[in-house]
């Protein structure tokens, strides 16, 4: 192997498959837990609210790489018999849940108070108030930031390369080490990331503009 040919490109695409899969799993998992975190963060119970605040502050105040290391080695230490790749997914899910939780918390709190007062006046219970009144509106407001985070998460999965998980960035490293053409290989890897993230970024800023116009 001395030049960048089709087999090398195919190897990068193999890595891309894991990048996409890891992103989807952690975004969906992080979304489900993130919803719980967001609801806990706006909970009227002070203890629950503080716990959610601490959870978010912990993940926003430490590097993603450290979160990855601590969860990765922490799970191993607790002798959980799991795949490296399950451990990495758990780490990214936890990371995503804190950030999505905070984004959605912001959206929930940005709703006019009258909405909640009106739903109280209509004697709606907590579940109905959240499901029918608060969350649908909050989701719309938070959409640009949520998509922005999806871009961050896609790029963030590249750090799994450092713990040895063979996704796109790691595949690039391997190919680069084999054919000694880092300029070309990391250029191609960067281009692949770009063409995944760029459309999402465009969609995000398009929605943001639409939202700021008020429809």
């Amino acid at each position, binding site marked *: 192997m001395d030049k960048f040919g089709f087999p090398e490109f195919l190897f990068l695409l193999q890595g891309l498959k894991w990048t996409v899969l890891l992103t989807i799993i952690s975004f969906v998992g992080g979304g489900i837990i993130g919803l719980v975190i967001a609801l806990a963060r706006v909970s009227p119970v002070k203890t629950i609210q503080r716990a959610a605040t601490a959870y978010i502050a912990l993940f926003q*105040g430490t590097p993603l790489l450290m979160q990855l290391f*601590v969860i990765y080695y922490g799970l191993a230490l607790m*002798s959980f018999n799991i795949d490296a790749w399950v451990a990495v997914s758990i780490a990214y899910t936890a990371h995503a849940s804190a950030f999505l939780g905070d984004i959605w918390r912001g959206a929930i709190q940005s709703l006019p108070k009258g909405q909640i007062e009106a739903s109280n006046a209509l004697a709606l219970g907590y579940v109905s108030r959240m499901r029918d009144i608060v969350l649908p509106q909050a989701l719309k407001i938070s959409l640009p930031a949520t998509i922005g985070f999806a871009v961050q998460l896609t790029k963030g999965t590249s750090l799994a390369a450092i713990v040895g998980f063979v996704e796109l960035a790691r595949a690039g490293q391997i190919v680069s080490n084999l054919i000694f053409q880092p*300029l070309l290989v990391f250029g191609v890897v960067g281009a692949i990331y770009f063409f995944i993230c*760029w459309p999402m970024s465009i969609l995000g800023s398009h929605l943001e503009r639409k939202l700021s116009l008020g429809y």
Partner: protein
Amino acid sequence: MFLWPKQGISLNKLNYSIVIERWEDLLNGVLFTLALSAAGIFLALVIGVVGVAMHRSGSGMLRVPVVMFVELIRNTPFLVQIFFLFFALPLVGIRLGPTVTAIIALAINGGAYSIEIIRGGVDSIPRGQIEAGAALGLSRRQIFGDIILIPALRAVYPALSSQFILLTLTSSVCSSISANELTHVAQRIESETFRSFEVYFTITGLYLLISWLIMAALSTLGNRHFSYPNQ
């Protein structure tokens, strides 16, 4: 795939003393990370201001490269950017060593985000304010500096601060090109002691401390220089 612990949870086997013994290395790592981040933040701010000035210059020759730079950097991972710089620069004859490469990578990455944030602030300046400056006979440079840039920086200061804290946290990725910052110190201690969890747990706490420190520093700076006197 997900099984219960085989030998029960072995948290009682943790040993932090090995990590604490290396406090001098850890302190050096913290200081290195702080220095790396400070340099990165300063240069990112410079790139941000210059980029916005170029973007507003009215010349497409200056604007298009800025837009392309911002989009390119914001849509590719930092890890790939730093690898590209680290391995590509020597090929064109530029040898900088890991520390300088790390600072450049952080500055470029943070700079792209700064351009985007400051541009948002500049867009929020009402046209009337700029026209008022022109009516008072201020020069183009005075208008950009005093009428547009300073109020814009004040408006986006909180967003800029959280971006700079993110930059500080991102600096941990510079360990991958063996820049001698905190994460790299951690990896060295880990490879000598095999105490992975204890090492990284401690380092995570130190990063939390670092981000609080930088947050406090930025908000002091903001209160002093980037807030309106009557607020």
